[in-house]
């Protein structure tokens, strides 16, 4: 097996405003994100040789082709739940790394607000069975993990809620500095703690919202990246681990970690040559679909020891000015989760941070950034980790 490290460069990116984009269709957002990416790379759409298109609701490639008018080239629709956009990029990387294509587009879109969707949905029978596993929502999946986190580490409800509130407050603060975020306002710990319950112990502010959005990246072979720009960034590692429901079937699963995240990060760290992720990584965009998810991800990615994430959160380690900024752009908490666009939206932040273009959120000289997605639920998930870094 070979590493992807330094074989693929990102030379342009685009990202729409995320939110309740009532006035924009999926087509509009695809055009906006792709145009920004092309412009950023200094190319035209006709220069793109192949497209990987991520969406969970649009289940063919044709709408993307039609919207962008990318005539008569390979366009492939990819889907992998919450990792869908990262999967578009991952597969696009292989297209470049194989040498078959020079310039490709990875793009993701989701238009959830045309479907009357108020919250991350009820899964009526995962796996096509309408009876077993009836009536479950994403909040319930992750609430179970929150309950376990309390039981496993002996935290009281009050202690857990306070730690979770700090995560939500941090992400809302970061989002308040980001003009592309859906929610651009700060909240207080009290608001978060006292919010109406969604799935006990998770309340309204422990959950991310639902929004529309699109994000895109232009990739090329690393050795030709300089033709496009000086401040391109490089793909350092790609990890993907899909769970086989083992945590649901096996009573030895503790439900205070997500094995798929652990495995995906191990793959990506190995490719990128990362030994000490907490020290080496400057920025991480992680899948904070719920506050508890971000808490556990900190441990899964090796940013802190098992059971210690609450201490790190209380110490402010993951704040914008902390040792390792987590969700500097505001995260899913501020952006909502248009599923097929989120991974590329996260990459957009890392890309801009590396280029020193993150405005009020800018970290000082970041060199290595991580993007993490987690689909489905603890015990049976899809973990995706992407490492992006500065050129040498």
């Amino acid at each position, binding site marked *: 097996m070979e590493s992807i490290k330094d074989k693929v460069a990102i030379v342009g990116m685009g990202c729409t405003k995320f939110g309740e984009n009532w006035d924009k269709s999926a087509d509009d957002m695809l055009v906006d994100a792709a145009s920004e990416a092309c412009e950023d790379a200094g190319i035209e759409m006709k220069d793109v040789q192949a497209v990987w298109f991520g969406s969970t609701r649009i289940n063919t490639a044709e709408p993307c082709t039609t919207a962008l008018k990318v005539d008569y080239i390979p366009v492939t629709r990819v889907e992998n739940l919450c990792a869908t956009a990262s999967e578009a990029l991952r597969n696009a990387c292989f297209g470049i790394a194989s040498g078959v294509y020079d310039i490709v587009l990875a793009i993701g879109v989701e238009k959830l607000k045309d479907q009357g969707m108020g919250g991350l949905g009820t899964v009526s029978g995962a796996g096509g069975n309408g009876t077993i596993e009836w*009536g479950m929502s994403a909040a319930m999946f992750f609430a*179970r993990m929150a309950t376990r986190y309390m039981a496993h580490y002996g935290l009281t409800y009050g202690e857990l809620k306070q730690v979770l509130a700090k995560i939500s407050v941090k992400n809302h603060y970061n989002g308040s500095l980001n003009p592309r975020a859906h929610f651009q306002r700060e909240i207080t710990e009290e608001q978060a703690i006292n919010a109406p319950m969604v799935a006990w112990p998770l309340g309204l502010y422990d959950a991310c919202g639902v929004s529309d959005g699109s994000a895109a990246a232009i990739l090329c072979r690393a050795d030709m990246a300089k033709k496009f720009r000086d401040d391109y960034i490089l793909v350092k590692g790609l990890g993907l681990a899909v769970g086989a429901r083992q945590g649901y079937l096996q009573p030895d699963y503790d439900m205070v970690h997500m094995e798929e995240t652990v495995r995906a990060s191990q793959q990506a760290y190995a490719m990128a040559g990362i030994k000490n992720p907490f020290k080496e990584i400057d920025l991480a965009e992680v899948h904070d679909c719920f506050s508890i998810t971000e808490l556990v991800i900190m441990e899964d990615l090796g940013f802190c020891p098992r059971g210690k994430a609450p201490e790190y959160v209380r110490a402010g380690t993951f704040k914008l000015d902390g040792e390792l900024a987590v969700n500097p752009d505001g995260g899913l908490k501020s952006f909502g989760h248009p599923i097929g666009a989120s991974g590329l939206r996260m990459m957009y932040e890392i890309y801009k941070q590396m280029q020193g273009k993150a405005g009020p959120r800018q970290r000082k000289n970041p060199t290595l950034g991580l993007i993490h997605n987690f689909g489905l639920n603890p015990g049976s998930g899809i973990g995706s980790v992407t490492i992006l870094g500065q050129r040498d």
Partner: protein
Amino acid sequence: MVGIVSYGAYVPLRRLGPGTQGWTAAGEKAVANWDEDSLTMAVAAAIDCLGDIERGTVDGLYFATTTSPYGEKLAATTAAWAADLRPDIITADITDSLRAGTAALRMAADAVKAGSAKRLLVTASDLRMGAGGMDGGFGDGAAALLIGDKDVIATIEGSYSLSNELLDVWRASGAKQVRSWEDRFVFEEGYLKILPRAVKSFLEKSNLTARDITRAVFYGPDLRRHRQMAGLLGFKPEQVQEPFFDKLGNTGSAFVPMMLVAALEDAKPGDKILLASYGDGADVFLLKVTDKITGIMGRWGIKNSLASKMIMRSYSDYLAFREFAASDPERFGGASASVIARDRDAIYTLHGVKCLTCGTVQYPPQRICTSCHTKDNFEPYRFADKKGKVFTFTLKYGADVPGFARPMVDTMVDFEGGGRAIFGMTDMLADKVKVGMDVEMSFRTLGAGGGIHNYFWRCMPPRPSAEGWLGKETK
């Protein structure tokens, strides 16, 4: 000789009673939860009745009710699947009469006598709604009797039936509520006339008098008429089985079978039990208790069921339960006939699998073992009778949860003997749910979508027998 081999009963946890807002009757009545119906209650009674009896020895299941979940579609097959019986058995629904329970008993006894079956399980269950004041007297519940000709705890010594054409109490096809004609006509031309005629004919035929009967178990529409009937039949109060009007309510076709279970709980070898049901005529049986009665143990039965209860907060919650049961055909849809058919052992019987290579049990059934990854090397494994502990849980407050069921409790259960699976929890107090608490499994309906009743298992705290366990349902 043909008789009863075992008995079981089920009274739902909830009661309307003093303390229930909007409930004016003096006594209590048992009411099914929103996720229960006549079929699920019958399954609970059947499982209670079967105890440790090898399920493979049962050759048939009759389901007696006036409130079958389907107008066309056997409920007995679903009950048989849920009770983990063999497929090569007799199944039938006996319906449309208050006598359905005793009619099923007779049919089962005749089938055993004729050699069509060695053991037949009779279930009787009802969940009726009445028009006007009738509903106050109706309760919900189920009984099960295993009929056979070996190891019987009570032999069927004789029987008598009378058919009578009369519109006294009825429910038209498609109507939800039971109706009746005016009281004086109903009782004087029906119940008070026909039941004594049948009982007297039977006693005369059998050369018996009321004095020869140890325990008289007979139908009554209400307490007043039941007492009146005891006098008409010549029974002293101490001979009469308590009818539970103030604790359970009139459970329709299950009423007399449930009273019989209560009588059997207190019976001694040699006791003679007279059983008399009413509805479009009357059925009368004489049972003689054998010394095997002392060997029946561990049944949940009537006494324990009645003692374990939760008084409902308000009458309007109860109405909401029934409204839900009658439900919006689109609500909570998603059950697929072909999926249920394919997975019926997993869904209705709650069969998981045990890997024959490494011994790991798992639910739902897998093709490739979760532990050793061996392919297609499993035997079925019954989870329905396994106890477990809550590994984790969440309380769902979503807008899609009906107010009367909010919050909904969702759990992940670790089973004794291995295996882990996800189940909703029922008959609990949401604020008492804890990691590590004990649970057992109960067959329930998740609602009716698209005209399909979506039956599945849920977990629940074991129902202790101590009176007032849960007390009043609180916010």
